[in-house]
């Protein structure tokens, strides 16, 4: 079973994502900010990360930059998930090492399509 780390400061979004990802056959872990996510990744790298952009403590983009520096940190497929949808934001995410992005609000169809596209399904 593939694992996905859900990083979002909104409990509701984490719940929605968790439900969808379980249906898609993923094991999930959750983190409410980038720092918690980073600590989890240091212990155990997931196959995928569904990553929010705006979070307190450590933002999505800062987490992503740090994640990619970890040994094996280029492994996880990172899907950025944001309400910001201008090109600059997306470009910044790609530069920081994101594999894909999803614009909120997302649904199960979009998540499934994206995870298929990046080869996780």
């Amino acid at each position: 079973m593939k694992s996905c780390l859900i990083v979002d400061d909104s409990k509701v979004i984490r719940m929605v994502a968790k439900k969808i990802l379980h249906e898609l056959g993923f094991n999930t872990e959750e983190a409410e900010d980038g720092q918690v996510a980073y600590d989890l990744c240091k212990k155990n790298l997931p196959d995928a990360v569904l990553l929010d952009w705006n979070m307190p403590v450590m933002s999505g983009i800062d987490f992503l930059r740090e994640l990619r520096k970890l040994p094996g940190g280029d492994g996880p497929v990172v899907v950025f998930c944001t309400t910001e949808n201008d090109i600059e934001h997306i470009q910044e995410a790609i530069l920081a090492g994101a594999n894909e992005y999803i614009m909120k609000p997302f649904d199960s169809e979009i998540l499934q399509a994206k995870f298929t596209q990046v080869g996780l399904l």
Partner: protein
Amino acid sequence: MLRPDDFDYLAKLLKERSGLVITPDKAYLLESRLTPVARQRNLKSIEEVVAKMRGRDESLARDVTEAMTTNESFFFRDTKPFDQFRDTVLPQVMASRAAKKSIRIWSAACSSGQEAYSLAMLLKENAARLAGWHVEIIGTDISVEMLEKAKAGLYSQFEVQRGLPIQFLVKYFKKKDESWQIDSSLRGMVQFREWNLLHELRGLGSFDIVFCRNVLIYFDQPTKSRVLENISRQMPPDGFLFLGGAETVLGISDRFKPVPNQRGIYCLSAGAAPAAATAPVGAGR
């Protein structure tokens, strides 16, 4: 509930005009898709729509036909065919056209243009390989509304999320209000034209590569084989045909045969000469 004779009238008209087969168990589709048409024209019910159509209202018949087609499409739909196009079919076609340096590609039943633009993006990505080549992409559909959308190249957030790799979005699209518009350079690579697949196809010319995906599924067997046969006449003997995931030529047309080890791709059978031997399907456009 739709009266049986109204249902029959609509079913017959749809089959004739677009090839769409509506069985009685799909009658609810008529209700759900034609109610907006009725409302738009200030008609109270679908019965009134049919009554008006019986009086030979061409523009209403058109709208009804368009409303009944399924236009769903997305970028790089099913992924694999586009990999096959880039890695197998395009190199092969380029090898055999090396002298002419010209290729024509057809997205038959292109809907809002995602398939044609996906191909255009792949060609752009391979621009170096294609330097000095003349590549034409033609998208055709029966739906004027979809073709307008295709020409504008404007897609919603939802649409660009489906299948379009993020790098391509950043590279080839611009944000325009709440939508995303595909680059004018890509729009310039594709030509969109209204064309009914049931009609004579000769006016379109000959295509080295044909994508005809997710449209034959709506037709009955005889219509499928007629359309396939007509498409085969628009292809050179070494052309390639891509069908949708739920479609095949097997048992439907012997003018095509599967390309070994390439799921969903077909080439002309040895016997299928590209000559215009038989009479065309429709009575012209």
